[in-house]
Protein backbone atom coordinates (compact mmCIF):
# COMPACT_ATOMS: atom_id res chain seq x y z
CA UNK A 1 0.00 0.00 0.00
CA UNK A 2 1.04 3.58 -0.53
CA UNK A 3 1.52 6.20 2.14
CA UNK A 4 2.09 9.87 1.73
CA UNK A 5 2.28 12.92 3.93
CA UNK A 6 -1.20 14.14 4.69
CA UNK A 7 0.02 17.73 4.82
CA UNK A 8 1.51 17.55 1.36
CA UNK A 9 -1.14 15.60 -0.51
CA UNK A 10 0.02 12.99 -2.96
CA UNK A 11 1.88 15.27 -5.37
CA UNK A 12 3.07 14.04 -8.75
CA UNK A 13 6.56 14.04 -10.22
CA UNK A 14 7.44 12.96 -13.72
CA UNK A 15 10.99 11.93 -14.54
CA UNK A 16 12.13 11.77 -18.14
CA UNK A 17 15.42 10.07 -18.94
CA UNK A 18 16.80 10.44 -22.42
CA UNK A 19 20.11 8.95 -23.52
CA UNK A 20 21.65 10.82 -26.42
CA UNK A 21 24.87 10.94 -28.31
CA UNK A 22 27.32 13.12 -26.41
CA UNK A 23 27.24 15.72 -29.14
CA UNK A 24 23.46 15.93 -29.14
CA UNK A 25 22.68 16.36 -25.45
CA UNK A 26 23.22 20.10 -25.02
CA UNK A 27 21.26 21.07 -28.10
CA UNK A 28 18.42 18.69 -27.20
CA UNK A 29 18.23 20.14 -23.71
CA UNK A 30 18.11 23.61 -25.20
CA UNK A 31 15.21 22.60 -27.46
CA UNK A 32 13.48 20.96 -24.51
CA UNK A 33 13.54 24.31 -22.71
CA UNK A 34 12.55 26.40 -25.72
CA UNK A 35 10.16 24.08 -27.57
CA UNK A 36 8.65 21.56 -25.14
CA UNK A 37 8.73 23.21 -21.72
CA UNK A 38 6.42 26.17 -22.49
CA UNK A 39 3.61 23.86 -23.62
CA UNK A 40 4.29 21.49 -20.76
CA UNK A 41 3.97 24.36 -18.31
CA UNK A 42 0.64 25.34 -19.85
CA UNK A 43 -0.44 21.77 -19.21
CA UNK A 44 0.52 22.07 -15.54
CA UNK A 45 4.05 20.60 -15.60
CA UNK A 46 6.68 22.70 -13.90
CA UNK A 47 10.24 22.08 -15.03
CA UNK A 48 11.85 21.47 -11.63
CA UNK A 49 15.36 20.41 -12.60
CA UNK A 50 17.50 18.82 -15.28
CA UNK A 51 20.74 16.91 -15.00
CA UNK A 52 23.06 15.08 -17.31
CA UNK A 53 25.45 12.24 -16.82
CA UNK A 54 28.04 10.64 -19.07
CA UNK A 55 26.93 7.03 -19.35
CA UNK A 56 29.57 6.06 -21.91
CA UNK A 57 32.38 7.55 -23.94
CA UNK A 58 29.89 8.88 -26.48
CA UNK A 59 26.58 8.89 -24.61
CA UNK A 60 24.95 11.27 -22.18
CA UNK A 61 21.81 10.58 -20.17
CA UNK A 62 19.70 13.65 -19.56
CA UNK A 63 17.32 13.45 -16.61
CA UNK A 64 14.48 15.94 -16.41
CA UNK A 65 12.13 16.34 -13.46
CA UNK A 66 8.66 17.82 -13.81
CA UNK A 67 6.37 18.56 -10.90
CA UNK A 68 2.58 18.70 -10.95
CA UNK A 69 0.39 20.04 -8.19
CA UNK A 70 -1.69 16.94 -7.61
CA UNK A 71 -3.38 13.98 -9.24
CA UNK A 72 -6.16 16.10 -10.71
CA UNK A 73 -3.48 18.23 -12.37
CA UNK A 74 -1.89 15.06 -13.73
CA UNK A 75 -5.12 13.93 -15.40
CA UNK A 76 -5.73 17.44 -16.73
CA UNK A 77 -2.23 17.38 -18.20
CA UNK A 78 -2.90 14.00 -19.81
CA UNK A 79 -6.08 15.29 -21.44
CA UNK A 80 -4.37 18.44 -22.69
CA UNK A 81 -1.37 16.54 -24.05
CA UNK A 82 -3.68 14.21 -25.93
CA UNK A 83 -5.22 17.15 -27.74
CA UNK A 84 -1.94 18.75 -28.80
CA UNK A 85 -0.24 17.11 -31.79
CA UNK A 86 2.94 19.07 -31.05
CA UNK A 87 3.53 16.81 -28.04
CA UNK A 88 3.85 13.63 -30.07
CA UNK A 89 5.81 15.48 -32.76
CA UNK A 90 8.31 16.50 -30.08
CA UNK A 91 8.75 12.94 -28.85
CA UNK A 92 8.96 11.54 -32.37
CA UNK A 93 11.77 13.98 -33.11
CA UNK A 94 13.44 13.05 -29.83
CA UNK A 95 13.12 9.32 -30.48
CA UNK A 96 14.71 9.79 -33.89
CA UNK A 97 17.77 11.10 -32.06
CA UNK A 98 17.72 9.21 -28.76
CA UNK A 99 19.59 6.03 -27.93
CA UNK A 100 17.12 5.26 -25.15
CA UNK A 101 14.25 6.98 -23.41
CA UNK A 102 11.95 6.42 -20.46
CA UNK A 103 9.32 8.33 -18.51
CA UNK A 104 8.35 7.48 -14.94
CA UNK A 105 5.41 9.00 -13.14
CA UNK A 106 6.03 9.04 -9.41
CA UNK A 107 3.92 9.52 -6.31
CA UNK A 108 5.50 11.39 -3.44
CA UNK A 109 6.89 8.85 -0.97
Amino acid at each position, binding site marked *: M*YHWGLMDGPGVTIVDRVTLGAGDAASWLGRLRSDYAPGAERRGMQLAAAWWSHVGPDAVEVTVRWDLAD*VAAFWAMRRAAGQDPAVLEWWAATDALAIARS*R*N*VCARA
Partner: protein
Amino acid sequence: MTRWVVQLRLADGATLEGLPGCAGCHLPGSVGGGDATWDVEAPQRPEPMTAGAQVLDAVALAPLRGARVAFTGPRIKRTLLLRVRPGTPLATRERFEAELAEMPRYITAIRGWALSRVDDAVAPSRWTHVWEQEYETVDGLRRDYMMHPYHWAGIDRWFDAEVPQSIVEPEVAHVFYAASGPVLP
Protein backbone atom coordinates in the same frame (compact mmCIF):
# COMPACT_ATOMS: atom_id res chain seq x y z
CA MET B 1 -23.91 -17.51 -25.66
CA THR B 2 -21.78 -14.38 -26.02
CA ARG B 3 -21.67 -11.44 -23.69
CA TRP B 4 -21.90 -8.10 -25.50
CA VAL B 5 -21.19 -4.49 -24.62
CA VAL B 6 -23.33 -2.35 -26.91
CA GLN B 7 -23.10 1.40 -27.41
CA LEU B 8 -26.48 2.94 -28.22
CA ARG B 9 -27.50 6.25 -29.75
CA LEU B 10 -30.83 7.37 -28.29
CA ALA B 11 -33.38 9.57 -29.98
CA ASP B 12 -35.36 12.02 -27.89
CA GLY B 13 -37.87 10.13 -25.79
CA ALA B 14 -36.26 6.74 -26.35
CA THR B 15 -36.53 4.36 -23.42
CA LEU B 16 -34.26 1.54 -22.33
CA GLU B 17 -36.98 -0.17 -20.34
CA GLY B 18 -37.74 -3.69 -21.44
CA LEU B 19 -34.31 -4.41 -22.87
CA PRO B 20 -32.92 -7.76 -21.73
CA GLY B 21 -29.75 -7.60 -19.64
CA CYS B 22 -28.84 -4.20 -18.19
CA ALA B 23 -28.74 -0.80 -19.81
CA GLY B 24 -28.34 2.79 -18.75
CA CYS B 25 -27.79 6.29 -20.04
CA HIS B 26 -24.24 7.50 -19.62
CA LEU B 27 -23.45 9.75 -16.71
CA PRO B 28 -21.53 13.03 -17.07
CA GLY B 29 -17.84 12.39 -17.54
CA SER B 30 -18.37 9.57 -20.01
CA VAL B 31 -16.42 10.07 -23.22
CA GLY B 32 -15.95 8.29 -26.51
CA GLY B 33 -19.09 6.17 -26.52
CA GLY B 34 -22.73 6.64 -27.40
CA ASP B 35 -25.60 7.88 -25.27
CA ALA B 36 -26.07 4.62 -23.38
CA THR B 37 -24.49 1.24 -22.74
CA TRP B 38 -26.41 -2.00 -23.06
CA ASP B 39 -24.87 -5.08 -21.40
CA VAL B 40 -26.48 -8.22 -22.69
CA GLU B 41 -25.92 -11.89 -23.45
CA ALA B 42 -27.02 -13.00 -26.88
CA PRO B 43 -26.14 -15.70 -29.40
CA GLN B 44 -25.55 -13.10 -32.11
CA ARG B 45 -25.25 -9.34 -32.53
CA PRO B 46 -28.10 -7.93 -30.42
CA GLU B 47 -30.59 -5.40 -31.71
CA PRO B 48 -32.64 -3.35 -29.28
CA MET B 49 -36.31 -3.87 -29.93
CA THR B 50 -37.18 -0.46 -28.61
CA ALA B 51 -38.08 2.68 -30.48
CA GLY B 52 -35.40 5.32 -30.82
CA ALA B 53 -32.41 3.19 -29.83
CA GLN B 54 -29.78 2.64 -32.50
CA VAL B 55 -26.70 0.42 -32.18
CA LEU B 56 -23.51 2.39 -32.71
CA ASP B 57 -21.11 -0.33 -31.71
CA ALA B 58 -21.62 -3.91 -30.55
CA VAL B 59 -18.57 -5.54 -29.01
CA ALA B 60 -18.45 -9.29 -28.42
CA LEU B 61 -16.43 -10.29 -25.38
CA ALA B 62 -13.95 -13.12 -24.94
CA PRO B 63 -13.45 -13.10 -21.15
CA LEU B 64 -9.95 -13.30 -19.71
CA ARG B 65 -10.37 -12.71 -15.99
CA GLY B 66 -12.93 -11.37 -13.59
CA ALA B 67 -14.30 -11.49 -10.07
CA ARG B 68 -16.85 -9.79 -7.91
CA VAL B 69 -17.57 -9.00 -4.31
CA ALA B 70 -21.23 -9.78 -3.74
CA PHE B 71 -23.39 -6.84 -2.80
CA THR B 72 -26.97 -5.93 -3.46
CA GLY B 73 -28.59 -2.78 -4.73
CA PRO B 74 -27.69 -0.04 -7.13
CA ARG B 75 -24.23 0.42 -8.51
CA ILE B 76 -22.16 2.15 -11.15
CA LYS B 77 -21.18 0.08 -14.18
CA ARG B 78 -18.13 1.43 -15.95
CA THR B 79 -16.74 0.23 -19.26
CA LEU B 80 -13.45 1.10 -20.90
CA LEU B 81 -13.11 0.13 -24.55
CA LEU B 82 -9.54 0.30 -25.77
CA ARG B 83 -7.34 -0.70 -28.66
CA VAL B 84 -3.83 -2.06 -28.27
CA ARG B 85 -1.65 -0.95 -31.14
CA PRO B 86 -1.32 -3.47 -33.96
CA GLY B 87 2.05 -5.15 -33.90
CA THR B 88 2.36 -5.11 -30.11
CA PRO B 89 4.13 -8.36 -29.15
CA LEU B 90 1.93 -10.95 -27.47
CA ALA B 91 4.16 -11.07 -24.37
CA THR B 92 3.81 -7.30 -23.94
CA ARG B 93 0.05 -7.47 -24.40
CA GLU B 94 -0.19 -10.25 -21.83
CA ARG B 95 1.86 -8.25 -19.33
CA PHE B 96 -0.48 -5.30 -19.84
CA GLU B 97 -3.49 -7.54 -19.28
CA ALA B 98 -1.95 -9.02 -16.12
CA GLU B 99 -1.20 -5.58 -14.67
CA LEU B 100 -4.67 -4.29 -15.52
CA ALA B 101 -6.26 -7.29 -13.82
CA GLU B 102 -4.35 -6.45 -10.63
CA MET B 103 -6.10 -3.10 -10.24
CA PRO B 104 -8.89 -4.51 -8.03
CA ARG B 105 -6.25 -5.78 -5.59
CA TYR B 106 -5.12 -2.19 -5.03
CA ILE B 107 -8.41 -0.37 -5.56
CA THR B 108 -10.92 -2.02 -3.30
CA ALA B 109 -13.75 0.26 -4.44
CA ILE B 110 -13.87 -2.02 -7.50
CA ARG B 111 -16.56 -4.44 -6.35
CA GLY B 112 -16.88 -6.48 -9.53
CA TRP B 113 -14.74 -6.54 -12.64
CA ALA B 114 -14.10 -8.28 -15.91
CA LEU B 115 -11.25 -8.03 -18.35
CA SER B 116 -11.97 -9.33 -21.81
CA ARG B 117 -10.44 -9.42 -25.20
CA VAL B 118 -12.71 -8.60 -28.06
CA ASP B 119 -13.95 -11.64 -29.95
CA ASP B 120 -13.31 -10.52 -33.50
CA ALA B 121 -14.40 -13.88 -34.84
CA VAL B 122 -17.92 -13.17 -33.58
CA ALA B 123 -18.01 -9.48 -34.45
CA PRO B 124 -15.09 -7.51 -35.92
CA SER B 125 -14.36 -4.42 -33.86
CA ARG B 126 -12.03 -1.46 -33.74
CA TRP B 127 -11.40 -2.30 -30.07
CA THR B 128 -9.14 -5.06 -28.75
CA HIS B 129 -10.01 -5.07 -25.03
CA VAL B 130 -12.89 -4.30 -22.71
CA TRP B 131 -12.19 -3.41 -19.08
CA GLU B 132 -15.34 -3.36 -16.94
CA GLN B 133 -15.94 -2.58 -13.31
CA GLU B 134 -18.78 -2.11 -10.85
CA TYR B 135 -18.65 0.39 -8.00
CA GLU B 136 -21.07 1.01 -5.17
CA THR B 137 -21.06 4.75 -5.90
CA VAL B 138 -19.70 7.05 -8.56
CA ASP B 139 -17.09 8.21 -6.04
CA GLY B 140 -15.54 4.77 -6.30
CA LEU B 141 -14.78 5.49 -9.93
CA ARG B 142 -14.07 9.21 -9.82
CA ARG B 143 -12.03 9.21 -6.59
CA ASP B 144 -10.76 5.77 -5.63
CA TYR B 145 -10.08 4.50 -9.14
CA MET B 146 -8.82 7.69 -10.73
CA MET B 147 -6.77 8.88 -7.77
CA HIS B 148 -4.97 5.68 -6.84
CA PRO B 149 -1.24 5.70 -7.67
CA TYR B 150 -1.38 2.15 -9.00
CA HIS B 151 -3.55 3.68 -11.70
CA TRP B 152 -1.97 7.03 -12.53
CA ALA B 153 1.66 6.21 -11.68
CA GLY B 154 1.52 2.64 -12.90
CA ILE B 155 -1.17 1.41 -15.27
CA ASP B 156 -1.43 4.72 -17.09
CA ARG B 157 2.03 4.26 -18.60
CA TRP B 158 0.48 1.72 -20.98
CA PHE B 159 -1.93 4.44 -22.14
CA ASP B 160 0.17 7.61 -22.08
CA ALA B 161 1.47 8.35 -25.57
CA GLU B 162 4.31 10.39 -24.04
CA VAL B 163 5.66 7.18 -22.48
CA PRO B 164 7.70 5.27 -25.06
CA GLN B 165 6.48 1.89 -23.79
CA SER B 166 2.79 2.78 -24.16
CA ILE B 167 0.78 0.37 -26.27
CA VAL B 168 -2.81 1.65 -26.13
CA GLU B 169 -4.16 3.91 -28.87
CA PRO B 170 -5.17 7.35 -27.53
CA GLU B 171 -8.80 7.01 -28.58
CA VAL B 172 -10.76 5.11 -25.93
CA ALA B 173 -14.37 4.94 -24.81
CA HIS B 174 -14.82 5.53 -21.07
CA VAL B 175 -18.51 5.23 -20.23
CA PHE B 176 -20.49 4.59 -17.08
CA TYR B 177 -24.08 4.40 -15.99
CA ALA B 178 -26.19 3.78 -12.90
CA ALA B 179 -27.54 0.22 -12.70
CA SER B 180 -30.16 -1.03 -10.28
CA GLY B 181 -28.43 -4.38 -9.67
CA PRO B 182 -25.61 -6.67 -10.75
CA VAL B 183 -24.41 -6.31 -14.33
CA LEU B 184 -21.28 -8.43 -14.53
CA PRO B 185 -21.53 -12.22 -14.38
